[in-house]
């Protein structure tokens, strides 16, 4: 039996909101990072859904790009987090406020 596309989109919206809340409220850099991944994959899910609804592969192609970019972003982001930890002995993002005006 086929799950209706609307359910997919609602799941996607739910995941996106969860990720967004994670980004906004969590203080650990790793958790924030994971939340961002969650948001990206929520978008991926909606893209795949739209591809299916429309009956072509455009959305799926876009998902591959997002995955690649997400992988690259993981490399860079983790490197930044590791470096922050090395220099400050913390990964709490509220402790990293050098840009305060």
């Amino acid at each position: 039996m086929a799950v209706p596309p609307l359910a997919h989109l609602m799941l996607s919206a739910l995941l996106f909101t969860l990720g967004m809340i994670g980004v906004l409220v969590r203080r650990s850099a790793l958790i924030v990072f994971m939340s961002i991944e969650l948001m990206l994959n929520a978008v991926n899910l909606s893209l795949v859904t739209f591809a299916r609804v429309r009956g072509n592969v455009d959305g799926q192609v876009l998902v591959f790009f997002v995955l690649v970019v997400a992988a690259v972003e993981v490399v860079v982001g983790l490197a930044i987090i590791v470096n922050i930890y090395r220099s400050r002995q913390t990964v709490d993002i509220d402790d990293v406020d050098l840009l305060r005006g």
Partner: protein
Amino acid sequence: MTRTLAALIPLLPLAGWIANGLWGGRLGRRAVAVIACGTVGAASVAAALLFWRVETAPGALSRVDLYRWFGAGTVQVAFRLLVDPLSIAMALVVCGVGFLIHVYSVGYMDEDPGFARYFAYLNLFMAAMLTLVLAGNLVVMFIGWEGVGLCSYLLIAFWFTRPAAAAAGVKAFLVTRLGDVGFLLGIFLAFGLFGTTDFTVMTQEAARRLALGGGAATALALLLFAGAVGKSAQLPLYVWLPDAMEGPTPVSALIHAATMVTAGVYMIVRLHAVFLRAPFAMDLVAAVGAITAIFAAACALVEPDLKRVLAYSTISQLGYMFLAVGVGAFGAGIFHLTSHAFFKALLFLAAGSVMHALHGETDMRHMGGLARRLPRTAGAFAIGALALAGIPPLSGFFSKDLILAEAFRAHIWLWVVGVAGAGLTSIYIVRAFALTFLGGSMRNLGEGAHDPPPVMDAPMRLLAGLTVVGGALGWSFTHPGVLERFLQPVIAEGATLVPRGGSGAGEAALVAASLLIAVAGIAVSWRMYVRRTLRLGSPWLSNLLRHQFYVETVYAAVVVGPARALARTAAAADRSVIDAAVVGVARSIGRAGQSLRGLQTGYLTHYAAFILIGAILLLVFWVSR
């Protein structure tokens, strides 16, 4: 050859300036002195060689184009030097007197910490003055004209830590600048009228391009004369020269007596062809000269400061020179310029020796009886004083007499004023001599006073010699004299307004009259200040003279006061309007930034929230559209 020599004359002192200015602090005093005197001495030799070339090839006029300076369309200005009898005679005077004063300065400035700076300025002055003298067009002359003004400022304010000296320097600079505005406008007008400012072209074309007595000629002559009035300290712009005595005394001798202040006379003689086309301007020149001559001589009568007496005397003698050129006696003007350079430099150097002996004292009320302690200085001063008073056979007699004779031919009143000024001249200079060198000893001053060292003595002796024999330059039973014959190629036949060759008897009577006045002045002064048996004048008169006829007071009220008020208003307006606008803009931007600063918390969460809010707002915008 001529080209090289002509270029070398100003360039040698310029090289001395560069050397002493850049490395003077590291060179020893001896090296500085050798460079300064050596370059000027070498320039003197070059001038003498050039003089010899001009003398052996009479009538030879050579224009030396060093390079093309600037050009625009038809206006082409070359850096041009003009070598002719007039410029070379003037260059010889400048170099000769300048060299002697450089040597004298070595002794005078011996203990001054600014030794190298002093000689650098002095060399720069020589370079500028020689540029002025040898200039082949008005624009090049203007370089020298402003250059000597700059050096005058620098040297008057040489002891810049003294407020009086600094103020005097500024005053000299500003007052001469007033005249220079006219001079600069005159240069522009000359460009407009002639298309060039080349002296030879202007001389040749003056008769063709300028209508006799026409507005153009009069305007040009008056504008140029304005520059001369400022530079040569004539009425009404004389006020800077007495204050200029704040500078070192050799500077007063060189710049403010012998050379720079005569630049105005030289310029008028140089452009006499233009001035002759404007009879009104010529009359004005003569009148200003005559009035200045007697005015400054009267001011010198009561001046208590030795150097300021000499300053007024310089103004007065410059007045005689303007009187001479104003009546068309250009040769006589240059002759008096030359003899005045000798005897006034001598007087200043003698005054400098007195100051040197008395540790800077210039107030004659504190002096007296110095003849016993400074016999050689007193002798030098006496020779200069007698030459100034016009006693034969000293040079001042011949030159002043020549001027008075020419003035008599032009107008009887010019002669009367001139002769009266001559009488005052002998009174004030004998007074200065008597108060300084004769009479009772002074109090507590001059205990160890003695004649100056040889390095200062020798220039005085040479100048005294020149003062004695200098009259030979112009002396002759029949006009013109040696100097005038030498200048003949430049000051062409018929240049004088008045036909030459009066009767011999009339000539003799004039000579006798002026000699009589001079001797009478000396006698009066002798009885007043040496014997003290004669008392003249009233408190009212002496008060008037002591305040220089209140000219400075009037200037202070009419010019200086309003100018200062305007300056204060402008300064206040600048602060409260222009500065306030600029500062206000900057401050409001700063305040805006300050208030926006709170947004930059540095917390990643907040930035994420802003992005979210922004995204939601965008969504709302798109959806609701």
